[in-house]
């Protein structure tokens, strides 16, 4: 054991040395790295959006371990909103109020956190259409759909038989599907087996989630059962390659321990190319297996203002050995991370993160190789194509640690290099490096608005950095991650701005503001409110008791609650505050907080009803108040609940204002 450990530490140290040497080599090669700023003179005016003016683009950045999505304006980098998705958010009551709790239900129960990685905008004809933003939850595999008329999470679907939903959600050209792929091989279906039986018992599953054209509703359409590789990232084809989705793999070595060494041994791993149009045919022909499953599909309604959690108990699975032509493996150096399809749909760029070069496959060559059936081998019934038959070109020694590529729509590609901490611009077709720009520091993904669609809007590039070290005022041991904005309209990339982000932005999406602004909702019409506990006017405000449950139908309007005096509540009751905001004006939410609540506040948009549960624990008179500065008399917007002993006879009464004195 001892000898083994020291061998491991030796090889790790050797690996570290090689990486360090690489980093220095990378630095030496970067003539453009001009000190910590590297900003040229007119950058300030290029990102200056005058007070009161709108930004040109929205940028949606994942929050990573914050579980949320940050919405920024570009080019200013101003933070506009944080959308709660996979993590509870006390500020908005998300996951704390009764209406949104079902959004975070899973087969494991209430899971109030996840690791949100890759935002992806819905597309029509391969162009971002501004309807939805999808994002994956990595830890407890899920995909969320955010409605971009409200900037609220509208649906969260759990992915069954998966572990670590990393290669997700990456839409198809008309948002027919978003995809999911397991980053961990897991027993399929889950069972109690020895971990070292990985090779025989573990599987890797790719999932295709259909998106309803009309209302966006997601369902797990089918899964494809593959070897237990780690499926890392994905992108769907476009144009001619529409109908295919490409997934990168690593750990084709099928290791289950010390992967950093074990999963880095093969010179080439694979891109799994899945023909989902053919999958639809096989499904229609009934060539699937329906297997028992257990997962949740949670939807939020803007009419009832409530989420419901639906249990689903089966899933359709396609086995490649029963479905010839469904999946092919494209050998690709080495532990590829990003797989990115250029705007024409012809080139598939694989960022082999441990490779010295960047590999680009040709879709046409792939089809020809399939046609010729010249396979290198087959793995679990899946043909492996020959590297030489599919490769279109190689970008030679562009940098170290390539991760992810996007396109500007003018024939150029931009790839991030984590280890050498730079963005490299190269020409699609000639594979020559055109420019390189440093990032501060250790860039992960990058984003060009529409940069993974058929029609990139190649004006800006945003680099998403993992490490900031000395870039901002220090804030103790934990530092922010950052985004860096570059102007990419010229031959050379020009850094304009860097700004801190919410959580860790793993990926981002950008879109012209004019594709979203016209559809942005201002408030919810009261007459459409179908919440079962709504009160659509002060006349409907009331208190009802059933056993130990007390339902308070409360309304808010500037600047009072109705009712604001409530008596007859007792210790041991469960009190529901169902608060309807009667306002019908833009930007007039009201908040609700009651002393001693064990959950959070409510933040109720105009026309909405939200519910806070409260357990009165002691006798007394307990204040509540409005938490969102709503008006000149906001500070007066308050009230009381009288709490009596459990056995008291205090009558249940409620009121607003003192009775008119009798004349």
């Amino acid at each position: 054991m001892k000898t083994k450990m020291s061998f491991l530490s030796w090889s790790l140290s050797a690996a570290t040395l090689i990486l360090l040497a690489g980093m220095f080599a990378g630095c030496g090669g970067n003539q453009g790295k001009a000190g910590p700023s590297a900003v040229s003179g007119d950058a300030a005016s290029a990102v200056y959006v005058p007070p009161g003016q709108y930004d040109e683009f929205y940028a949606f950045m994942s929050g990573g371990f914050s579980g949320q999505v940050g919405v920024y304006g570009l080019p200013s980098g101003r933070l506009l909103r944080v959308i709660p998705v996979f993590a509870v958010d006390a500020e908005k009551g998300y996951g704390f109020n009764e209406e949104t709790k079902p959004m975070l239900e899973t087969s494991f129960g209430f899971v109030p956190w996840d690791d949100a990685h890759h935002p992806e905008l819905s597309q029509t004809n391969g162009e971002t259409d501004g309807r939805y933003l999808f994002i994956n939850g990595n830890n407890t595999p899920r995909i969320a759909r955010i409605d971009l008329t409200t900037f609220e999470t509208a649906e969260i679907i759990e992915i069954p038989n998966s572990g670590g939903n990393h290669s997700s959600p990456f839409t198809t050209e008309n948002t027919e599907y978003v995809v999911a792929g397991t980053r961990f091989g897991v027993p399929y279906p889950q069972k109690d087996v020895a971990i070292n039986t990985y090779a025989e018992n573990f599987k890797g599953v790719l999932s295709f989630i259909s998106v309803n054209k009309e209302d966006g509703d997601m369902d797990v359409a089918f899964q494809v059962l593959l070897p237990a590789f780690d499926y890392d990232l994905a992108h769907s084809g476009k144009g001619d390659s529409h109908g295919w989705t490409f997934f990168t793999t690593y750990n084709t070595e099928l290791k289950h321990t010390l992967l950093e060494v074990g999963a880095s041994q093969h010179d080439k791993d694979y891109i799994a190319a899945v023909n989902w149009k053919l999958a639809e045919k096989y499904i229609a022909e009934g060539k699937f297996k329906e297997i028992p499953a257990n997962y949740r599909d949670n939807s939020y309604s803007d009419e009832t203002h409530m989420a419901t959690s639906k249990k689903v108990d089966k899933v359709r699975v396609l086995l490649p050995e029963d479905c010839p032509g469904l999946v092919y493996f494209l050998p690709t150096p080495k532990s590829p991370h990003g797989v990115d399809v250029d705007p024409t749909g012809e080139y598939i760029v694989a960022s082999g993160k441990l490779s010295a070069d960047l590999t680009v496959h040709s879709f046409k060559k792939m089809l020809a190789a399939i046609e010729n059936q010249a396979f290198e081998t087959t793995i679990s019934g899946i043909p492996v194509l020959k590297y030489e038959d599919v490769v279109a070109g190689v970008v030679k020694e562009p940098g170290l640690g390539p991760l992810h590529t996007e396109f500007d729509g003018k024939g150029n590609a931009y790839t991030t290099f984590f280890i050498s901490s730079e963005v490299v611009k190269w020409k699609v077709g000639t594979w020559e490096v055109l420019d390189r720009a440093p990032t501060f520091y250790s860039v992960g993904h990058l984003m060009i608005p529409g940069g993974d669609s058929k029609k990139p809007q190649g004006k800006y590039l945003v680099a998403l950095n993992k490490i900031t070290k000395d870039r901002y005022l220090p804030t103790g041991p934990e530092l922010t991650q950052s985004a860096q904005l570059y102007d990419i309209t010229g031959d050379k990339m020009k850094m304009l701005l860097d700004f801190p982000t919410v959580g860790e932005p793993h990926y981002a999406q950008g879109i012209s503001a004019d594709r979203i602004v016209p559809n942005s909702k201002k408030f919810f019409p009261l007459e459409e409110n179908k919440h079962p506990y709504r009160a659509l006017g002060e006349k409907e405000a009331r208190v009802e008791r059933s056993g130990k449950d007390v339902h308070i139908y409360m309304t808010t309007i500037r600047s009072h609650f109705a009712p604001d005096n409530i008596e007859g509540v007792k210790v041991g009751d469960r009190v529901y505050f169902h608060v309807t905001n009667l306002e019908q004006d833009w930007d007039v939410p009201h908040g609700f907080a009651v002393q001693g609540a064990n959950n959070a506040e409510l933040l109720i948009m105009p026309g909405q009803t939200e519910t806070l549960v409260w357990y009165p624990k002691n006798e007394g008179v307990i204040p509540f108040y409005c938490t969102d500065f709503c008006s000149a008399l906001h500070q007066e917007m308050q009230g009381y609940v009288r709490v009596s002993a459990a056995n008291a006879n205090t009558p249940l009464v409620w009121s607003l204002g003192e009775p008119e004195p009798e004349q």
Partner: protein
Amino acid sequence: MKALPRLCMVLATAGILGLFLFPMWKIILYAPQYPTGVQMNIWINKIDGTEPGTLQNVNILNHYVGMKYIEPDAIPELKYFPMVILVMAGLGLLAAAINKKSLYLTWLIIMVLLSILGFYDFYLWEYDYGHNLSDTAPIKIPGASFQPPLIGTKEILNFTAVSLPHIGGYLAGAGIFFSFLAYWFRRKQ
């Protein structure tokens, strides 16, 4: 052009019937928090605004200074003004049928008188809303009135209030002018 007076009188009638298709007056309130303004529309038979919630929003603003709620159901004019206009439209068509210049002139004079009365009534309502303030208003400003202008622009605390005719008002005005033309052309014949 023997039919010209009749045609004008029919147009006059159509003009005042336009009051049922378009608002006759608008009052717009601008403030820093309302950069695009809150626009209230006054129709012959109702009061609303450019947004479904406009009236509620105006009432919310008004209640801080103790102004009465604008409740269209409590304004009887919105019930009987439409009747008056319908009767005048009927009389207009009758006048066109008979085609006498004295009738055209009479219709014109009645409409002008009705318009003056209407404006006076509008002024009285504005005066009442602007001056008849609740004793328990949260915000009291000694000597201040919140009466919007009859026509034109006026600064009221943090608001700029603009009061102007709307399409229906212009159509009715054009209608009255056409009744004058009917009279004029008939006299020339």
